[in-house]
């Protein structure tokens, strides 16, 4: 009894359970709005998911926390205030993108700066056929308006986007995989721009994407279910938000499952081998081109699926949603979380998305409220602050600073991959003047 107590890491089960219950109660009972404190209460709640997945605790309690939070508490909070559902759904969408990019950059070590292109491919696939847009260039049968496809065809198209996006990944990969490191980076960057410019320009001579005006009226799957469930208390749009939440949760679940399986499989080890030393890997019989192509195709298919979901959730897409900054944003999520780490990708996506959509907004609204009330600091009334100091104008600036600070504080990422954490710990011992070695 005594010895096993010493061997085992300390069991945190009850502390975590206590924390989770406290967080739920505080969020549901005390801070249920969207202000600054409400936002922090929500973050504390989400943090319990992270806590449950990272400390040593009884498996049943871990499972229970996940089920209760994801299946009951978040939907409950979300139905009261759909903004929370929207945030969690966005986090899910970007988490899937980050997981996909993590395969390409984190596992296989191929720097891809145009990842959002595959997201765009998926989004436009459903947008074109799930709205009346396809009538512009396709006429099927006698009726002039065959499209939009019925909203529930979404699930068929979703399967299709997996194939289309993966094909796009292979098509990009085939000619350029000979390139090394940063040459690959610039070509993928170029590819991303090409896709965006094509989406922006393919309204003439044949109108395929409707150009800069974007595509409106994109169908939402299961909208009939949402309508049927709608009551005066919980209108259909809230149910629809819940449906997206469930869909995204399902896709994320699948994505994590596949990623974990791949990571531990032969192909996963081949990726890491290529990342660490391409020549040695090749000498050991790893087929370079095929292994890299699989990485590209898998990553792309994750992005494609989420693109289709994104398009239908927004009901409108335009090329502006798929610019270079988005690619960089997803890369920031992966690096912030920790390259090659599955949990890291999700944590990174959650932090970047929540920071941008929620925390910075709540912060600036709060500061603005102080200003409007004429709160004084050291005898200076904030109401006299010139318009140039409007807090809501500096969200991007603050985000930039936070990005720098977080990377300087934890260069290995917030949840580093175990293998790499080990490497860094070892290297820190040596005297080191070399600039971040040759590896990614």
């Amino acid at each position, binding site marked *: 009894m005594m010895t096993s107590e010493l061997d085992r890491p300390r069991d945190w089960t009850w502390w975590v359970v206590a924390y989770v219950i406290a967080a739920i109660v505080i969020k549901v009972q*005390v801070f249920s709005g*969207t202000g600054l404190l409400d936002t922090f209460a929500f973050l504390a709640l989400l943090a319990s998911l992270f806590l449950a997945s990272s400390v040593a605790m009884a498996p049943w309690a871990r499972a229970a926390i996940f089920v209760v939070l994801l299946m009951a508490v978040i939907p409950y909070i979300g139905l009261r205030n759909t903004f929370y559902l929207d945030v969690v759904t966005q986090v899910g969408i970007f988490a899937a993108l980050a997981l996909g990019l993590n395969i390409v950059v984190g596992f296989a070590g191929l720097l891809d700066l145009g990842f959002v292109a595959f997201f765009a491919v998926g989004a436009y696939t459903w947008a074109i056929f799930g709205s009346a847009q396809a009538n512009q260039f396709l006429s099927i049968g006698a009726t002039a308006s065959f499209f939009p496809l019925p909203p529930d065809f979404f699930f068929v198209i979703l399967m299709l986007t997996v194939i289309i996006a993966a094909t796009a990944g292979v098509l990009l990969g085939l000619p350029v995989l000979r390139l090394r490191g940063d040459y690959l980076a610039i070509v993928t960057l170029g590819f991303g721009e090409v896709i965006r410019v094509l989406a922006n320009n393919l309204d003439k001579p044949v109108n395929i994407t409707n150009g800069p005006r974007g595509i*409106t009226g994109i169908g939402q799957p299961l909208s009939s279910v949402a309508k049927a469930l709608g009551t005066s208390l919980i209108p259909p749009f809230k149910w629809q938000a819940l449906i997206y939440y469930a869909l995204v949760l399902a896709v994320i679940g699948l994505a994590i499952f596949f990623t974990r399986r791949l990571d531990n499989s032969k192909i996963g080890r081949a990726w890491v081998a290529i990342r660490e030393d391409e020549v040695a890997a090749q000498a050991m019989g790893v087929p370079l081109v095929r292994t890299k192509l699989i990485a590209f195709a898998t990553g792309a298919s994750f992005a494609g699926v989420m693109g289709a979901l994104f398009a239908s959730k*927004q009901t409108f897409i335009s090329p502006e949603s798929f610019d270079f900054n988005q690619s960089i944003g997803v890369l920031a999520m992966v690096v912030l979380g920790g390259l090659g780490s599955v949990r890291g990708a999700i944590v990174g996506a959650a932090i970047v998305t929540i920071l941008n959509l929620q925390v910075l907004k709540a912060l600036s609204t709060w500061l603005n409220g102080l200003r409007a009330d004429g709160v004084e600091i050291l005898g200076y009334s904030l109401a006299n602050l010139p318009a140039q100091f*409007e807090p809501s104008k500096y969200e991007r600036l603050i985000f930039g600073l936070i990005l720098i600070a977080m990377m300087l504080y934890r260069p290995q990422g917030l949840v580093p991959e175990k293998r790499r954490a080990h490497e860094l710990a070892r290297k820190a011992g040596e005297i080191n003047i070399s600039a971040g070695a040759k590896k990614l």
Partner: protein
Amino acid sequence: MNHKRTRLALIAGIAAAGLFGLGSASAADKGTIKIVTHSPLSGPNSPSGESIKLGAQLALEDYGKLLTSQGFKVQLQPEDDQANPNVGVANANRLINDPDILAVVGHYNSGVFIPSSEVYAKANLVAVSPANTNPQVTDRESTRAIANRICGRDDVQGPVGADFAVKDLKAKKVYVINDKTAYGAGVADAFEAAVKKAGVKVMLASGVDDKETDFSSVLNRAAIDKPDIIYFGGYYQQGGLLLKQMRQKKVGAVFMGGDGLDSGDLQKIAGSENVTKAYFTTLGVPLSKLPAAKKFAEVYKTKFNKDPEAYSAYGYDSMRVVLQAIADSAKANGGNKPSREQVAAAVRKVKFDGLTGKISFNSRGDIEVAKYVVVGVGPTPDKNDVKSIIEKKAPNS
């Protein structure tokens, strides 16, 4: 094992305290009403976005008493959509969940208004646009109840410009360039279709990326083609540059564009000596020509230390519409806070003489009669010269 029991007791205690003790509600007298301005406050479009916000802020100071006299607290909540549809939609999802928010003044970019208004429509949150001229803004069935605008439409503005080009400028051959944004492409296409109909030859119809600064590809060609007019559908940041490079390259064609060029900075960017033979169509008489707006311009200047932009007055009038509508519906509601549906319905009944002209809406949310103005650009903004003022009813009204 005793520890476990104490921990369980602890947990139960927290839960009980939470469920019974802390749920308290504070009752204010009549509550706060928040009005949101939703426009780009950061990024390249922020001068225009901010001018909307500042205009609205002034209107709140002037007409906020409509609500405060009824016992409400009124608060302006500025939101930044970063001219990005994703940000706009995410913000919209947050805004609809704050019950104090009864109306939105925004946006600047049609590409942001369209998806964001889909979200507002779900919660019947009314939006009054000060600047979105794209027909889709009010033409969509799904947002019929809540989408309004107090400015004109591209499908009228383009033909008005074309009319001026053909009749007054006697153009025979033109270039039509657009910046490949939802706004620029819309107004340029409307212009192109209208001049083609009048038998004018369109020698080049092309887009340029909206971040492009190098127009030499188009202008070198124009030096040989010698078109009568180069029409640019886009914003003044690029339009001013195009005009400047045109004159530097000694292209003598007339330069024309839509209301995106309507800014005091057009001359600054182009350089005052380069502003020759330049016109734009816009939606509302320039402030300097309106006696009613003179005071507005002065107050704006002293308060914010800069001149009002074209959309400042629209921001002002939009906010006034919203305040009036909320005040009317509150009165109809027995002095209580009105519902969002009531406010949305009341917006359509608002009528007053604003800075930008007579404000009243048709059943689609378009302004009933919009003024379309052709402006000859002078070397400085106050030397801008109104060529003609055309009043047009919104189509389908």
